[in-house]
């Protein structure tokens, strides 16, 4: 956190000054470790075993916050009797189909529930992740799941969880993670000691947890710990994603993602649904706030297609294109390589450096007809046709590359109005300070004017496929010397309007009869009272510690989600020390430091009638209002494709065998069979010894992502001017690496070179009786900019998490040898020699 989010780390430093224990778990001793009370060096790719060990520690010592767990989680819920755990199937759950490499999740459901349905329908036969959006199992109305609040029933979640993790002992943690039992105990005790009415603990993570073939399950394991310790919905608790781009949170909320519409509404799937009503029926949950999904969807369609969207035409639901599988970026990449993609837009992203298997991206872009790059600087993805590493190896020849490339300079944040959504869901407006120079324009300008040109060209068309474009509401006011569209007008559209054209004050006002419009329901209220709430900048020192008048957090300006859980079931704060939101009986309302995340007037003793729907179907004691059962999920009956509980699997490429199960890696992980994406053999496979070391990647404080915003600036470039690798003195001795010399790091994809930084900060670990060495690589460099170097991401293959298609670049295997890499065609020969030898030996 100190390394990649230094200013956020000031709060950790402050917490530490107030007595907090700071624990840092990382393969590398970083700037964070330097200030932490405890640093835990861990083998990259083994965190589920580590966290699972903590779950086991909590359960076997009964250290869970029992009142919270019973009241607020699904611990007491009883599962179907045909669910079979990985403990009984050696690493697989029930429902596994080896032919499709996917699970039928029906046996994972709660007992007494209709199987499979969820908000974000997942029952489609394929891997099905693409049919999901919103989370939550659907409860058939009137059938609350069976519960045993004594937690003794052998099929209740609590007991299933306990059994699932019972083998994750400190000894197993040591075997898998290389963390000694005494160090593990220190962490587990610190967490348990900070649980209960008076105390809380928080988790912070970044892509070190997510970029794995089991990335979602990493976060799930942390969720289980936090629910068991009563750390969700409470001040000082939670799980904080430390996101790495200014608006990466915003780009999922208002998604530039293929499977979502704004506000986590699923993109319609071609085979999954029939018409509008079928889509709504299958995706909306009768209980919880997803019960109003039709209002959110209809309001979105009204925002996009205005008067053309009527009840008679299902509000233009059929204008939405249909997805039919995985269309994520790595699937698009394969299609691009196969010549199926003609045109490609890059908006401030540099896949030639920033994406896994960069060579594959560069080869693929050479197959495009045309490419539009919008960026501040001349990034590697814009110039692959003249200076990519493949030009040097002879795999690509400039004259052979038919790709037409447009590099359009982008406006900087100081040159445009707009909002970023930061990592705590806070929307913050930045004001334009100056006009962009030359041809620099905002992406708002580009998109608006491109749309205008397209519509002009299609004007008068009677082709039905053009109706969605021609009927689109696209009349934003423009201003200034460049006819810049008004970001303010766009934000108003996102906020939503009622039938009179007035701005709505929040999503509770949205209707499914076409009388309201709203571009993103979870952002509704960001322009409440006609005021741009995101532009509020009331000084922090003039406000309460929650600072509710700085920017605007979705939903409804809530700063902590599910904060009803900060009070006990009766609505009283768990303790005076940790009071946050509570029931004010005199006023008959929830009140407190934050906007209560609960129907404001629903008392703690409210019990829903049998015919109640949506949030009214949840009792006054169920804080998790987005979940159909109102509870935090220790166990996930629906919503994940690779298991209802996290399970330790090795990374796709690992020199270590999985000591817990015969199943080595996540069985549902996504693999890409392509010559440019050869994989290293793992432990137990022939040739695994060719790639004996673990390799991981990370950021440095001095640089930003793929380098477009740091390698091109002298004041940052000089601070970390060259690509380097970090290795332990022991590994250096083993491989003959010299400090400050050069090393070549090799995988089945390619070989890169780096300067050698020998440091004790990368400690070798003892795992299963042997030493495992790790190679640490920052990934900021590429061929352009003031400082250049080989790209670490070129080393990694495409092995993806099946839920979200994230690439596994935080743990793989490699070889390392002294000296620089070969130049020209010899580079490919070196790599091919490894692949061939790897297969043969």
């Amino acid at each position, binding site marked *: 956190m100190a390394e990649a989010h230094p200013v956020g780390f000031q709060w950790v430093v402050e917490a530490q000054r107030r007595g907090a224990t700071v624990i840092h778990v990382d393969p590398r001793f970083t700037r964070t470790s330097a200030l932490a009370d405890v640093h835990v060096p861990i083998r990259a790719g083994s965190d589920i075993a580590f966290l699972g060990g903590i779950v086991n520690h909590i359960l076997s010592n009964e250290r869970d916050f029992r009142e919270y767990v019973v009241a607020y989680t699904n611990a007491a819920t009883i599962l179907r009797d045909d669910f079979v755990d990985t403990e009984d199937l050696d690493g697989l759950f029930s429902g596994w189909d080896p032919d499709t490499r996917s699970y039928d999740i029906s046996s994972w459901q709660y007992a007494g529930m209709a199987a499979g349905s969820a908000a974000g329908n997942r029952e489609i036969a394929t891997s099905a992740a693409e049919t999901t959006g919103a989370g939550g199992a659907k409860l058939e109305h009137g059938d609350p799941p069976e519960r045993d609040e004594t937690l003794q029933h052998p099929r209740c979640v609590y007991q299933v969880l306990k059994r699932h993790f019972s083998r994750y002992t400190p000894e197993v943690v040591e075997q898998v993670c290389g963390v000694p039992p005494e160090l593990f105990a220190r962490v587990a005790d610190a967490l348990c000691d900070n649980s209960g009415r008076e105390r809380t603990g928080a988790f912070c993570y970044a892509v070190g947890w997510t970029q794995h073939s089991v990335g979602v399950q990493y976060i799930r394991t942390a969720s289980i710990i936090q629910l068991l310790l009563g750390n969700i919905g409470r001040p000082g608790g939670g799980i904080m994603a430390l*996101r790495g781009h*200014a608006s990466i949170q915003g780009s999922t909320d208002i998604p530039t993602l293929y499977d979502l519409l704004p506000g986590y509404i699923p993109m319609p799937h071609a085979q999954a649904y029939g018409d509008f009503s079928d889509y709504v029926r299958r995706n909306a949950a009768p209980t919880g706030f997803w019960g109003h999904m039709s209002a959110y969807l209809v309001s979105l369609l009204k925002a996009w297609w205005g008067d053309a969207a009527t009840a008679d035409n299902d509000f233009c639901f059929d204008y939405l294109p249909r997805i039919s599988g995985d269309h994520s970026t790595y699937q698009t990449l394969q299609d691009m390589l196969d010549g199926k*993609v003609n045109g490609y*837009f890059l908006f401030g992203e540099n896949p030639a450096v920033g994406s896994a298997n960069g060579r594959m991206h560069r080869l693929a872009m050479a197959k495009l007809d045309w490419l539009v790059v919008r960026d*501040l600087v001349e990034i590697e993805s814009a110039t692959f046709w003249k200076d990519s590493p493949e030009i040097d190896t002879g795999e690509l020849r400039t004259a052979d590359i038919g790709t037409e490339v447009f590099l359009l*300079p982008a406006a900087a944040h100081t040159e445009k109005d707009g909002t970023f959504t930061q990592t*705590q869901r806070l929307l913050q407006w930045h004001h334009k300070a100056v006009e962009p120079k030359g041809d620099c324009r905002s992406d*708002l300008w580009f998109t608006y004017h491109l749309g205008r040109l397209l519509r002009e*060209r299609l004007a008068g068309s009677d082709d039905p496929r053009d109706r969605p474009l021609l009927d689109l509401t696209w009349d934003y006011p423009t201003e200034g010397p460049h006819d810049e569209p008004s970001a303010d007008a766009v934000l108003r559209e996102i906020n939503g309007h009622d039938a009179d054209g007035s701005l709505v004050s929040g999503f509770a006002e949205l209707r499914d009869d076409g009388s309201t419009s709203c571009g993103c329901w979870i952002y509704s209220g960001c322009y409440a009272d006609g005021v741009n709430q995101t532009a509020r900048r009331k000084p922090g020192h003039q406000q309460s510690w929650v600072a509710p008048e700085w920017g605007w957090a979705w939903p409804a300006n809530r700063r902590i989600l599910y904060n009803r859980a900060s009070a006990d079931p009766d609505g009283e704060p768990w303790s005076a020390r940790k009071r946050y939101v509570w029931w004010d009986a005199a006023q008959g309302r929830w009140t407190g430091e934050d906007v209560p995340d609960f129907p404001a007037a629903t008392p703690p003793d409210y019990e829903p009638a049998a015919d109640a729907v949506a949030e009214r179907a949840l009792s006054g004691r169920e804080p998790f209002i987005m979940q159909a059962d109102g509870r935090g999920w220790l166990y996930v009956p629906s919503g994940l494709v690779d298991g209802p509980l996290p399970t330790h699997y090795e990374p796709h490429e690992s020199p270590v065998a999985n000591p817990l199960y015969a199943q080595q890696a996540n069985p549902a992980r996504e693999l890409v069979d392509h010559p440019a994406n050869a994989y290293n053999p793992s432990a137990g496979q022939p040739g695994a010894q060719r790639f004996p070391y673990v390799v991981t990647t990370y950021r440095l404080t001095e640089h930003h992502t793929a380098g477009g915003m740091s390698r091109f600036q002298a004041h940052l470039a000089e601070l970390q001017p060259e690509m380097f690798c970090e290795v332990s003195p022991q590994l250096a001795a083993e491989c003959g690496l010299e400090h400050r010399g050069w090393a070549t790091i090799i995988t089945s994809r390619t070989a890169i070179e780096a300067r050698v930084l020998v440091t004790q900060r990368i400690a070798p670990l003892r795992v299963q009786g042997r030493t495992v060495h790790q190679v640490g690589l920052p990934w900021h460099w590429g061929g352009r900019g003031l400082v250049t170097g080989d790209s670490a991401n070129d080393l990694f293959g495409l092995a993806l998490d099946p839920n979200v298609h994230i690439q596994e670049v935080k743990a793989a295997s490699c070889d390392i040898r002294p000296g620089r890499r070969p130049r020209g065609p010899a580079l490919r020969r070196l790599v091919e020699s490894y692949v061939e030898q790897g297969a043969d030996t």
Partner: protein
Amino acid sequence: MIRKLLPTWPVARQLTTADHLGRGRAAQSPQSAGLRARTADADKVVGSVCPYCAVGCGQQVFVRDGEVIAVEGDPDSPISRGKLCPKGSATHQLVTGPSREQRVRYRRPHASEWEELSLDEAMGMIADRVLATRRDTWQDLDEAGNPLRRTMGLASLGGATLDNEENYLIKKLWTALGAIQIENQARI
């Protein structure tokens, strides 16, 4: 002339002030005496947000004569309390530095160099290509006869560094075009 010069002459200052050793005020050059933080003379100070990571630190953008003259942390922000990391501290160089592209560049198929192209011309060419690609790759129905209404010939990547309003327009326009392959780095 002399009357003007004389007081600025260090020796004279040394004689006429209490700084007889010439180590303090007397040694101060006119430039030093007139120093002022350039931010104090800004035409305006614009509230902004750091464009790097997602902590969302408040920034103050100082503008004079239509140019950004400094970018600093905003002490009012309850998130950042005026702090910036090295990247945030380099924002002025990010937005005003010489590495920024200011003109459209165009690479013709098979060409070995960039060419110049006007922004208007580029926009028109891109619009033409979008429509042609869409026409050539349109899918109305899948094999089972389910509606698809889409093109798989167009794709886009990026958005995590963009404004919400920009992502919103991209998603809206692309969806209306039938282009579903919209992606960015956001995942979990």
